[in-house]
């Protein structure tokens, strides 16, 4: 009896919570964009990512929530902060140089500025109109592809529909996502070696924290990878936790031994994409389509691909945090 009488109250509370969450997200997004100070903007962006993860939980999408919290808030935040630290070092050097030579930077407000402002507004209007049009023309009351996905779940090799979509039905997308991550790292590496490292004194607390957390993070990455077959989790979530372990290691001053920086590191970085593509190609040779797995061992294959992808994603994210190509001496 009591449970029934409490029901409208609970719905109301949820509605209030969702509304607050929605407005908080909009406000944080606006503040992050409008904030003049970069550090503040990054902190707001991280807060935005965490609230966004909460929003995904409210939308019953725990897989996306995990990825958003780990990559969107955690690792992107760490990458942005690392970039900011380097920018500050660079700016300080630049402003000292300018002081020395008494270079005066003259900023002129020109007609170009108003022109670009109008251009930006136009672009904004076009995008906004497009979005409104897309939302208004959404078909109502369709079940989408949920039913076909659930009906064919048995032949996908896993029981978590999200993993089935990501690794089996839409394997292309995940393969391309992995490639994008690899390309991003190649882009960073093509800028050259690691920028001059800012000195860090980790101190006993950070050292102790890393010792306690890193084994746990590696274990959690393995757990997320394994659990992805039948519950929220998977390669990207596991990989980003592994990447976080890498970032923590880099923060306490740990560096990969020069022995491993050359070929072993590069092989690990392309391992995920490599296994994924070879799995696809092998099935072409066996007379199937690219990435069309036979249902009998799709499960094992998905686990294999995800394990390779987890490792590659983790190492790639940590390498991105390092921000440059690690030096290694070629044997002459």
């Amino acid at each position: 009896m009591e449970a029934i009488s409490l029901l409208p109250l609970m719905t109301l509370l949820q509605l209030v919570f969702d509304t607050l969450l929605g407005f908080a997200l909009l406000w944080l997004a606006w503040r992050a964009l409008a904030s003049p100070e970069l550090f503040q903007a990054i902190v707001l962006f991280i807060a935005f990512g965490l609230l966004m993860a909460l929003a995904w939980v409210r939308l019953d999408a725990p897989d996306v929530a995990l990825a958003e919290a780990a990559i969107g808030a955690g690792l992107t935040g760490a990458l942005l902060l690392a970039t900011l630290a380097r920018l500050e070092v660079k700016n300080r050097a630049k402003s000292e140089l300018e002081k020395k030579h008494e270079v005066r930077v003259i900023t002129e407000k020109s007609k170009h500025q108003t022109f670009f402002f109008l251009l930006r507004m136009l672009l904004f209007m076009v995008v906004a109109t497009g979005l409104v049009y897309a939302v208004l023309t959404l078909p109502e009351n369709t079940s989408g592809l949920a039913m076909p996905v659930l009906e064919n779940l048995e032949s996908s090799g896993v029981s978590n529909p999200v993993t089935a979509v990501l690794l089996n039905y839409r394997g292309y997308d995940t393969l391309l996502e992995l490639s994008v991550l690899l390309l991003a790292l190649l882009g960073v590496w093509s800028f050259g070696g690691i920028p001059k490292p800012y000195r860090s004194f980790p101190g006993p607390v950070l050292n102790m924290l890393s010792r306690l957390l890193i084994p746990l993070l590696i274990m959690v990455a393995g757990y997320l990878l394994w659990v992805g077959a039948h519950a929220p989790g998977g390669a990207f979530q596991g990989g980003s936790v592994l990447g976080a372990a890498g970032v923590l290691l880099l923060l306490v001053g740990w560096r990969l031994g020069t022995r491993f920086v050359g070929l072993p590191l590069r092989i690990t970085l392309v391992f995920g994409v490599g296994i994924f593509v070879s799995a696809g190609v092998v099935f072409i040779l066996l007379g199937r389509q690219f990435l069309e797995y036979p249902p009998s061992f799709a499960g094992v294959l998905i686990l294999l691909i995800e394990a390779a992808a987890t490792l590659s994603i983790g190492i790639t994210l940590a390498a991105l945090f390092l921000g440059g190509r690690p030096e290694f001496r070629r044997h002459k």
Partner: protein
Amino acid sequence: MLLSEFLTSVLLLAGAFFFLAGTVGLLRFPDVYTRLHALTKADNVGLGLMVLGLALQAESWAVAGKLLLIWLLVLLSSASVAHLIAKAARQKGIEPWKQ
């Protein structure tokens, strides 16, 4: 209402009160050190009470164990991060508030 549900409600409300106190401290205290003090300590207790309250409703011991693990991890990280922020503030030369 069952006893466990009653206890859960009390613990959750107590936890929320500690979170509220920590947030008020964060907003009202004069400098970074006192704010850290208010935030981390109050939130750790608040989360502990909430975890305890939720563990009473857990379906299995495994779920209760996971909740406890979350609390322990937050304790570890919030204590360390509070120390690191305070250390960074000291290195930046921010003097503790005195009055």
